[in-house]
């Protein structure tokens, strides 16, 4: 249950252009939002800033009124333990089993082995991979890997769930199931932000949609940011 707020955030990569341009957007706590836009629009950058794997060039990012841009390095681990993240490129351990990959956040949090097993199995059954828990992740299809990443993101019941193209490699039925899973998490109070360019799917879900184009918010059903953008004040 966390409120997230971007205040005039700009991210410029060295040798690159501005991936985000003066973005201001608020995600009230317990809401579910889709982040959309064309490839290169800045969706992944947006989520990386929230994860604190990148820092903004300008602007502030507040999570529960704490400015995470100014978060000291030693406090980052505790912050990340309360986030669940699904990555566009999975970030799974190729040498480890499905089970071990999903168990990782729990081990890091210091959970007892029995509880770990229970939670991991619950998460794996949510994504339909319970029978593959002993397999190495190399032996999985891309879609299956994606689902392992999702199980790992939700296994620690995070307060904030960030997902970057979580259904990028899944068929429509499975995509829907995964989105429904996120919705269930949202229903118990988790703030969810999902980046996806699957317009058809996210339109059908009926949640708020924030659309980015070349680093700026061009459409938000909250419309406050949209107005500013049209003014040219952004």
């Amino acid at each position, binding site marked *: 249950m966390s409120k997230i707020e971007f205040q005039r955030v700009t991210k410029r990569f060295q040798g690159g252009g501005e991936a985000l341009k003066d973005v201001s957007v608020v995600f009230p706590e317990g809401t579910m939002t889709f982040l959309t836009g064309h490839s290169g629009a800045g969706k992944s950058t947006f989520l990386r800033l929230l994860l604190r794997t990148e820092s903004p060039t300008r602007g502030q990012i507040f999570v529960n009124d704490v400015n995470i841009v100014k978060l000291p390095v030693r406090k980052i681990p505790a912050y990340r333990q309360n986030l669940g993240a699904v990555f566009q490129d999975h970030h799974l351990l190729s040498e480890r089993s499905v089970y071990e990959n999903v168990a990782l956040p729990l081990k890091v*949090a210091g959970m007892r082995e029995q509880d770990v097993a229970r939670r991991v199995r619950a998460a794996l059954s949510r994504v339909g991979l319970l029978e593959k828990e002993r397999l190495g992740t190399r032996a999985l299809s891309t879609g299956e890997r994606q689902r392992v990443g999702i199980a790992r993101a939700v296994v620690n019941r995070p307060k904030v769930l960030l997902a970057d193209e979580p259904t990028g490699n899944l068929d429509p039925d499975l995509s829907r199931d995964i989105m429904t899973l996120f919705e269930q998490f949202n229903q118990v109070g988790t703030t969810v932000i999902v980046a996806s360019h699957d317009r058809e799917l996210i339109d059908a879900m009926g949640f708020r949609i924030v659309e980015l184009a070349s680093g700026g918010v061009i459409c938000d059903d909250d419309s406050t940011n949209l107005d500013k953008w049209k003014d040219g004040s952004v």
Partner: protein
Amino acid sequence: MAASNEPWPRSKRPIAATFRDHVSVIRDSVRFTSRRFGTSLLVWLLIGTAMSLPAGLYLIERNIEVISRQWDSLNSFSVYFKVGASEGDINELVQQIRSHSDVVTVTTVTPEEALNEFSSYKVIMDAMTLLESNPLPASARVAVDDQLSLKRLSDVALQFGELGVVDEIVVERAWLQRLQAIDEFISRLGWVLGVLFGAGAVLITAASVRLALELRLEEIKVLKLVGATNAFITRPFLYSGAIYGLGGALVAAMVLSAALILLEAPLGALWSSYGQMVNLQGDEPAFYFGLGLVGVILGVIGGLVASNQRLREINID
């Protein structure tokens, strides 16, 4: 709200969790080491070699110190009588020495007593039994005034050397001083080499740990993403370092034990020629425990050097 009290739940890890981490990390580290046994063995040999020289010098230094301490408090010389000298002649001479103004005490050692002194040394006793008669001479240890200079001591000693029944006079303190100078030198050398080779051992472990770290770079990045602390991430590498260091200490211990076994007999013979029996120091558990501890500490330092340096460089994503 101040940044100091985070609004998200602090991950309070129970002590038991940290303990569990350590256990599983040790298990992993042992598995990792044994899976790459060839490399590990090489590292152990390198560290072991680096450690055995300073540790060996330390042992030598300690043995010399023990030997010299046996004479340390004594301002004395030994008189060895000719084999077969009559008891009467010997007694007469002893009386003469006793009456000298600088002499404090004279203790005589009969050939039988000398033989008894050897009785705990099996090798020498075995050799002795081959001889029909006792080959040891009678001797007398003469303690002089504590204040006497080495020069005066030598003068007093030599003045008895002229007499017929005397075979040899040995002024222990003369070579004792030489020995102490050598001891001091070896001690210094040991320290210098200890620092140099200790740094070497640290660098060897650091390089090996660094290698292990590179192999697990992917894992480190993922761990960082799911919120692992640096302590959690470095732990396996510190244990790897400790295992390398401990293995190295083990190699050094084996090298030194072998050296002690090889040296014990000839050294025993050498000391016995001075009428002294010395047990070589260094075969006691405390020394090996200390060696292991030093190995572990050097290894952990190596692990810290490698992982701190590398972790700072890793920017995730």
